[in-house]
C-alpha cells in the first residue's frame, strides 16, 4: 500500500524520457525549478513555457495521467497551505496564484524526473557532482528504509486494529501514539543492527 504513495511508478515502461541520461534530466529539472522559483509573478511567458515543456515531458514519459495527478494530490497539501497563507496576508495577496502555479510546476518536474530515473541513477549523478559521500549514504539509506519502516508501521497498525474493539476516537489516537512511539524505538534499534551489518562488511 505504501508503495502507492511513495514508491516509483512500477509499470516502468521504457520511454524516450526514461532513456535520457540521468545527469541531463536532473540538470534540466534543477534549472527549471530554480528558474521558476526566481521568476517574477508577472512573467507569464516563462510559466507557460515551463508548462509546455512539462506537458511534452509527460507525454513522452508515458506516465499515466492518473498516477501523476494522484501523486500531485498527495503532495499538494504543501502547495495549498503555502498559497493559503499567502492569500490571507494582505501585503502579498495577489501572489497566491503565482505561488500555486510555481509549486505545481516544481512538483510536477520532480515527479516526472523521479519516476523516469532509477533512484540509483540519481545517486550516481549526485556522486559525480561531488556531493559529500556521507550525505549520499544518508539519502540512500533513507530511501531504502522508508519502505521497511512504512511496512513495519502498517503491520503494527493492523495488529493494533485487530485488537481494538472500540470506535472511540480517543482510543484510536492513543493506539496511534503507541504505534508511533514503538516505531521510533524499533527504528533506532534497527539502525544499530544496520550499522553492525555495515561494519561486518568492512564499513569504516
Amino acid at each position, binding site marked *: 500500500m505504501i508503495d502507492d504513495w511513495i514508491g516509483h511508478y512500477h509499470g516502468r515502461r521504457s520511454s524516450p524520457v526514461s532513456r535520457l541520461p540521468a545527469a541531463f534530466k536532473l540538470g534540466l529539472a534543477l534549472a527549471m525549478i530554480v528558474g521558476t522559483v526566481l521568476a517574477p509573478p508577472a512573467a507569464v511567458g516563462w510559466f507557460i513555457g515551463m508548462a509546455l515543456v512539462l506537458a511534452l515531458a509527460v507525454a513522452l514519459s508515458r506516465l499515466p495521467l492518473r498516477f501523476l495527478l494522484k501523486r500531485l494530490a498527495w503532495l499538494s497539501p504543501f502547495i495549498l497551505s503555502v498559497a493559503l497563507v499567502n492569500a490571507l496576508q494582505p501585503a502579498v495577496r495577489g501572489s497566491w496564484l503565482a505561488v500555486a502555479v510555481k509549486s505545481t510546476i516544481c512538483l510536477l518536474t520532480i515527479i516526472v524526473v523521479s519516476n523516469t530515473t*532509477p*533512484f*540509483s541513477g540519481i*545517486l550516481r549523478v549526485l556522486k559525480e557532482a561531488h556531493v559529500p559521500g556521507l550525505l549520499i549514504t544518508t539519502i*540512500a*539509506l533513507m*530511501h*531504502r*528504509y522508508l*519502505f*521497511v519502516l512504512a511496512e513495519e508501521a502498517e503491520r503494527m497498525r493492523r495488529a493494533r486494529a485487530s485488537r481494538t474493539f472500540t470506535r472511540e476516537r480517543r482510543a484510536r489516537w492513543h493506539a496511534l501514539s503507541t504505534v508511533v512511539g514503538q516505531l521510533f524505538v524499533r527504528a533506532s534499534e*534497527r539502525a544499530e*543492527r*544496520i550499522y*553492525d*551489518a*555495515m*561494519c*561486518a*562488511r*568492512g*564499513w*569504516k
Partner: protein
Amino acid sequence: MSAAIQVTNLGYRYHDGTEALRGVSFSVAPGECVGLLGPNGSGKSTLLLHLNGLLPEKPDVAGAVRILGQPVAPDNLETVRRQVGLVFQDPDDQLFCPSVQEDVAFGPQQLGLSEAEVRARVQRALAQAGLAGFGRRATHHLSHGEKRRACLAGVLACEPSILVLDEPTSDLDPRGRREFKALLRQITATKLIATHDLELVVELCSRAIVLDHGAVVADGPTAELLNNEELMLAHGLERPHILRHHHPHGE
C-alpha cells in the same frame, strides 16, 4: 595449524545486566561445518556478533576470541572482518542498498578493490547464490527467499574464509529452505550456523554445539547429540524426525 575460530572462556553482559554469555569455550577447525543450537535467548546471536568484533563495545583485552590465530582486537578488526563473513538474521538489516548489485558490491568496495574486480566479484557472488540476472532489482521488492540469497551473495563477494550464519533458513518455505541448504553445501569455507532447523544441522554439519543460558552445554558429533532425546528436550530442542526414521536404503 591454528583453529579457524577459537573461543576461550568468553563472557558477556548486556547493559541491562542480562548475562548473555558465560564461560563459553569451543574451537572450530578450518573447513569444518558446525551447527550452533539452543533455545531462543540462549545467546547464539550474541556469540556470533563477537566473532566479528561487533561485540563487546569495550575492546576485549583478554583475547577470548581468536580468528585463524589472531585475537579479535580493535587494531585488527579489519583483518577479522575480512576473514569472517556474517549473515544476519533479518535480511532487511543487511540489505541496505537500493539495488541488489550495489548491495553485493558494498563489501568488495570497502575492501578497496578496483572497479573491474568489484564487478567480477559481484557477478560471481550473484551466480553462486543463484541470483544471476537479479542485479538491477530493488532490494525492497525481493521475496524473502531472494533477500536471504542476496544477503549471502553480499557476504560471499567479500570471499571470507569463515562463514557465520544466523538462522539462515527461518521464514523460508520448504523449497526455499532446500535451495538454501544446497547453496550452503557448495560453499567450501568454514561454516558456523546458528539455527533451529535441526534437519539442516543433520544434513550439513558434522558437529553441533548446544548453547543454553549463555553457556555451552554440549559439543560433539551431530548424530550423537541430536539422537540424545533427553539432552534435546532439556534445552528446548527435540530429536529431529529425520533421525527417527530408519533409512534401510540410505548410507
